[in-house]
């Protein structure tokens, strides 16, 4: 008897059918193969004598970029969630209007401005990038932490209190699990913005996937630009897919 399409499909292991796995694989493949793609790019851009970016291996740039975003986002998430929780507690309530005002005002500032302003303060290199990414990444996280906690229905809060849970038990057992979907959404926004800002961080001396792009732009080398853009674009899309997966996993409403 002939196999149906579904039978054939289900014979392929789940992991190979996963779009996210393919995306990550493509990203790593590109990062490793691009240095060897001389022939390709030479054919596409015959006028360039250096069609492939060689100053650093792409896999190193990829790792640098990921590291920058990872470290700054960890700070943003930890401090941001702590701040969001703190201003929704009775003790911190006085500070909430101000924190909300700072957060919404801060988001009208373009991320590039925060990056540029960090340089006169701490100089060039990775430090201004880390600081700018960490500070700017705080804003969506704080906003979504507060929104998430506010989204817990009042009767649920009231019941939890009335049953004799301590404030810590209410926070950890009831409020946080229910707020988590919004928190993840905020972290996702923060990380995606940071990936973009980290690409521009090469203008302040950090070596990231933006470096080939910036070098290519100033040197009129379109091949460099495409290589960098492909990699950083793919990194962003892959990360977004991963967060989409996380968001679905976290949604408590089955």
């Amino acid at each position, binding site marked *: 008897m002939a196999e149906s399409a579904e039978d054939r499909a289900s014979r392929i292991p789940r992991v190979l059918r996963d779009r996210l796995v393919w995306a990550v694989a493509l990203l790593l493949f590109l990062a490793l193969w691009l240095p060897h793609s001389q022939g390709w790019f030479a054919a596409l851009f015959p006028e360039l004598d250096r069609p492939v970016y060689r100053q650093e291996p792409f896999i190193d740039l990829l790792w640098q970029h990921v590291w920058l975003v990872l470290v700054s986002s960890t700070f943003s998430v930890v401090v941001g969630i702590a701040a969001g929780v703190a201003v929704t507690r009775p003790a911190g309530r006085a500070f909430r209007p101000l924190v909300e005002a700072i957060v919404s005002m801060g988001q009208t500032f373009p991320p590039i401005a925060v990056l540029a302003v960090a340089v006169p303060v701490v100089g060039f290199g990775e430090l201004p990038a880390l600081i700018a990414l960490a500070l700017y990444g705080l804003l969506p996280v704080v906003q979504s932490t507060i929104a998430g906690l506010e989204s817990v*229905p*009042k*009767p*649920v*809060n*009231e*019941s*939890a*209190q*009335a*049953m*004799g*849970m*301590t404030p810590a*038990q209410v926070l950890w057992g*009831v409020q946080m*699990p*229910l707020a988590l979907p919004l928190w993840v959404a905020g972290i996702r926004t923060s990380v995606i913005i940071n990936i973009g800002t980290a690409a521009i961080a090469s203008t302040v001396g950090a070596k990231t996937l933006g470096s080939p792009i910036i070098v290519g732009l100033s040197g009129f080398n379109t091949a460099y630009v495409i290589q960098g853009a492909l990699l950083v674009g793919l990194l962003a899309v892959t990360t977004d897919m991963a967060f989409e997966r996380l968001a679905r996993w976290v949604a*408590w*409403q*089955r």
Partner: protein
Amino acid sequence: MIEFQNTSKSYDGIKAVDGLSLTIARGEFVVLIGPSGSGKTTALQLINRLLDHDSGRILFEGKEIYSFNVRDLRRRMGYAIQSVGLFPHWTVERNIATVPQLLGWERSRIDQRVTELLTLFAMDPAIFRTRYPHQLSGGQQQRVGVARALAADPAVLLMDEPFGALDPVTRAALQLEMKRVHEGSGKTIVLVTHDIDEALLLASKVVVLDRGRVVQVGSPLELLSKPANDFVADFIGRADRGIKLLSLRAVEPYVSSAPAAPDAPSIAITATVREAVSCMAAAGVAVLGVRNSDGRVVGSVQAADLVLPARHG
């Protein structure tokens, strides 16, 4: 068991509860009733310290409630509200198990209690244990809410308009279940409502509140036969006060052994006089047969007798 001594509570300069003095004895089913803004919900929330009273005292088992650890106090009282507030991310089982877990009961005892409570509210434990709140109907959610409030077998059950959001059929069913629970367990129940019929059905003691003060305290019969003032009389409903009184009387004292017509409709001997009168009016007859618990007709009642005070008993 719970005593308010000249208790007051203000918000924004308005006294929600104004010099309230009230005693709630063990085993009573006390219903706080009054119009909006009468302070009934506030008074309820003062008992488990969701709100803190500004002056006066509130005693629980003889001690001022401020001398208890607030968490321990709340774990000894069940609390059920109109919007239920079930934890959406937990199963029915986990919801009901909340306070027992806080108190550190063993797993097996908790499981047993969950089964017991679900059965009590006519919800098949096998089916409902693992359901989530969003998979339940409104009536089922409220049942689980009350079950959760009863889970740790508290001495006191506080309820704030628990049946207000339900359709009339479910509401009636749940009211009867509450009555059964009270009679079976002997718990002290304090229920807030604005529905006078609910109060008359459930309460052993009705407390009428107006603008934070007690207007009248008494059994449903006392309230209906001797309302303290016009406010109470209006609140109860002047026009059908008599009909409401009829619902407090049973048919049994009026049954005579004279047989009814063979084709006459019949009612159970445990019915209220109000049900009998309603049946007569619906059928357009003046005599009803009366059935006992086996279904056998054992006598009859006459319309003319029912409106008079009972002859025997």
